[in-house]
């Protein structure tokens, strides 16, 4: 079977196989019909298929009578902030985030800048499948596509929300790997405004992805070398669309992407105590940090729409997921790596200690993440089999909000279907490597794989 995922996270597939212009045109028409006529922003990341997909999106939106504003290449969070600023009814980001370059996807943003919620995404799917789209006649169809530059606006909002002067005074030296993605156009500029000496690598949006655009230690090799050679205060690794970031400390040690949120939560809670929102399979370091401040933790299913929705519902002070994504609500209640950098550097500026010490002060756990590739038609069967296999022994310790999460006194095991690829994701966390391996084996035994 060919990889194509149509779901609440949008529509995602491989270009040259399943992700065809007809498919994209259809989804764009469905989205335009679903939102009703108004202004819709369109941006893309730097994948080679970006121009093709963006053109198909634009054709579909124009056909439904929606005015299109082309933002060109920009991070998704810049689009999300601009939706309200430009009076748009929504936005479409053409990006497959952390997926390899031959993938692409559409992410649908609503009028308030957050992603369609799960139920709204289901409504959109119904419109798509019914196929009866709004059609603008010749006298209603927009005649041209406007262009807008929104990264400047993003920077303006960031400047207003963080103590730029305090960070500038520290003159940090920061190594940043933009993976030749859209963050190339935002992150170095933001760091410069923060008075940093910027050691940027892979910051050419015309270049190919320098590595898989997933911020995690295995993709931090280059930036670690730059941190060490350039004696930087920290290093940053971006993803393909500006949501996730992982960190490298001043010693050149790559921190797990799981640590971005606990670190940010610690900083946000120092400012104000309030709810922390994360998904079911993010490190329990989040709970341990929150407990230090007496703050509640709200756990949601995996996926940014759930995080944003819960952050609004619970008036959260911070939110995010274990993949390195953090939402700083004073900027916007949605994942935004530039806002994450702002929070991080403004706290690092007032801290007496370097990043390594802040990281070491976080609760130390071990997480293991594994992929179990499965044919798309067998995924839910496999998940159901796992649930049946653990039901008796894990009575009272299972959380079925998203996949199957089994709690242990000293850790947890989580198995769920990927939202984006044809696989099960197995995540295990424990206080120590040996125990984590034990839990992985425990899970594999019950997965039968």
């Amino acid at each position: 079977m060919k990889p194509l995922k149509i779901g609440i996270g949008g529509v995602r597939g491989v270009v040259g196989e399943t992700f065809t212009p007809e498919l994209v045109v259809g989804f764009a028409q469905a989205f335009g019909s679903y939102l009703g006529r108004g202004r819709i922003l369109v941006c893309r990341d730097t994948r080679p298929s970006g121009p093709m997909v963006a053109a198909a999106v634009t054709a579909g939106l124009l056909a439904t009578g929606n005015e299109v504003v082309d933002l060109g290449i920009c991070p998704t969070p810049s689009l999300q902030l601009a939706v309200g600023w430009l009076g748009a009814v929504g936005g479409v980001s053409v990006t497959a985030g952390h997926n390899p370059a031959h993938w692409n996807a559409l992410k649908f943003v609503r009028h308030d800048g957050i992603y369609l919620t799960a139920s709204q995404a289901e409504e959109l799917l119904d419109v798509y499948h019914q196929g009866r789209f709004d059609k603008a006649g010749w006298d209603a169809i927009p005649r041209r596509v406007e262009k807008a530059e929104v990264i400047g606006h993003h920077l303006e909002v960031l400047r207003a929300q963080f103590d730029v002067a305090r960070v500038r005074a520290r003159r940090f030296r920061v190594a940043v790997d933009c993976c030749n993605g859209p963050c190339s156009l935002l992150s170095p500029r933001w760091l410069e405004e923060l008075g940093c000496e910027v050691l940027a690598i892979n910051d050419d949006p015309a270049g190919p992805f320098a590595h898989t655009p997933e911020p995690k230690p295995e993709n931090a090799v280059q930036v670690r070398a730059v941190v060490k050679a350039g004696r930087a205060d920290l290093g940053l690794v971006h993803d393909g669309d500006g949501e996730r970031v992982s960190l490298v400390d001043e010693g050149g040690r790559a921190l797990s992407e799981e640590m971005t949120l606990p670190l940010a939560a610690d900083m946000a809670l120092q400012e104000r105590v309030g709810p922390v929102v994360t998904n079911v399979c993010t490190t329990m370091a989040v709970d341990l940090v929150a407990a230090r401040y007496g703050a509640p933790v709200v756990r949601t299913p995996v996926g940014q729409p759930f995080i944003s929705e819960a952050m609004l519902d619970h008036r959260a002070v911070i939110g995010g997921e274990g993949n390195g994504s953090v939402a700083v609500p004073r900027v916007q209640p949605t994942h935004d790596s530039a806002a994450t950098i702002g929070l991080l550097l403004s706290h690092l500026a007032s801290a007496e200690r370097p990043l390594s010490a802040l990281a070491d002060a976080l609760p130390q756990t071990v997480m293991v993440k594994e992929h179990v590739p499965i044919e798309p038609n067998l995924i839910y069967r496999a998940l159901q089999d796992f649930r049946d296999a653990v039901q008796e022994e894990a009575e009272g310790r299972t959380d079925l909000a998203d996949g199957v999460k089994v709690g242990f006194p000293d850790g947890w095991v989580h198995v769920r279907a990927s939202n984006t690829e044809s696989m099960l994701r197995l995540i295990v966390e424990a206080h120590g490597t040996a125990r984590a391996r034990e839990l992985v084996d425990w899970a594999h035994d019950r997965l039968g794989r």
Partner: protein
Amino acid sequence: MPAIPTLKISISGVRGVVGDSLTPDLLTRFSQAFGTYIGSGRVVVGRDTRTSGEMVRQAVVAGLLSTGCRISDAGVCPTPTVQLLVRHLRAHGGIAITASHNPPEWNALKFVGPDALFLSGGRGRELLDIYHQGDYTKARSHRLRGVEDVPDAVDLHLDAVLGAVGPLPAGRRPKVVIDSCNGAGAVAGPRLLERLGAEVIGINVTPDGSFPRPAEPTAENLRSLCDAVRRHGADIGFAQDMDADRLAVVSEEGTPIGEERTLLLAIEHVLSQTPGPVVVNLSTTRAVEEVAARYGCRACRTAVGEANVTAGMQRFRAVIGGEGNGGVIYPAINFARDSLVGMALILHRLVSSGQRVSELAAALPPFEMVKMQFPFPSQRLRDVLRRAAREYQAYPQDLRDGVKVTLPDGWFLLRGSNTEPVMRVIAEADDAGAAHALAARVREQVEAWVTEPPRP
């Protein structure tokens, strides 16, 4: 009569109504079929000013890119500019986004092959087969290319026209009114006239796709141009259609001289300079033969359709050709109907003759033509045309394209449109009354035949 479909998919392209049948899905699939057909490579894309042009362009771009094509985007430009660029850039093909003279709710794709000619006949059918098979080239991500703008596309075209025809002789500066129908001609026509050395007054030269008049440059649609010519005391008036392939001429008296005479004036100028064969389609006035004979040249006839005429021109090594609907084709520049070339040739004719437009028109052989079109269900075309051929079997007929019947006192041609669900009747006779009577008689017959059950 059954409901008239709003979509025409044929060997001359795909044409439909925006907000109805001409969906972005259809457009992107057709563009994929074309990209597949030409084997990827560079494709020139240009469009007229219709309001739906941007939507159609985006769908075309998506479809072409997905097959691995590299796009040279000429933006808003005349259709002949697209054809010229295909040759100039050695592109593998081109797509002109225009429904030329159709009403504003229509739009269309016209496909240009690597030889800069429109696909038609066998090649058109091959493209249709690929479209219907639906098995399009899907370029892998790393093979995808992008879109490059060609901001000087129109300049290249104007340079070509001026290079081939030359500026007007010094000291002669005719006053010209041009009506571009707010179409693609607006970005090229006035500039060409200025560069030729004319004094230019433009009306409807805002390229915004609003239709200040119906786009077809027929006499009844040219009232404001006629008024402007009279008001300004101009020497000549020119009218273009939406994609600037066709040209109509208004005399200094403010009278349309008729689209057939556009071609005749252009033929006169070319034959006076470079005698040679003339090629026109079979629905063009018989005056073409007479004009050609004045210069000792011969005229050949082809089936209707630009592609047929250009093929005939190549076969007979024509020095000039075209269609009686105001489509002038001058092979020194390109094998394409081109109102820019038409204006340049006719202005030269005007200036070098020292006569007025009305005098030039009066000196042409006398003829009267009537063109009529009326709604007609495409699916009844074949049997009604066969019925017509049977009815007039006593007279000489040309069945290459519809049914052309030559009667003792004139001729008529009955043909369906490749682009709209309409039937066209063209009749020619020595005087207007006779031409009208002939056309009206044929139309009545057709409308009676279509109510009869079709014969197997």
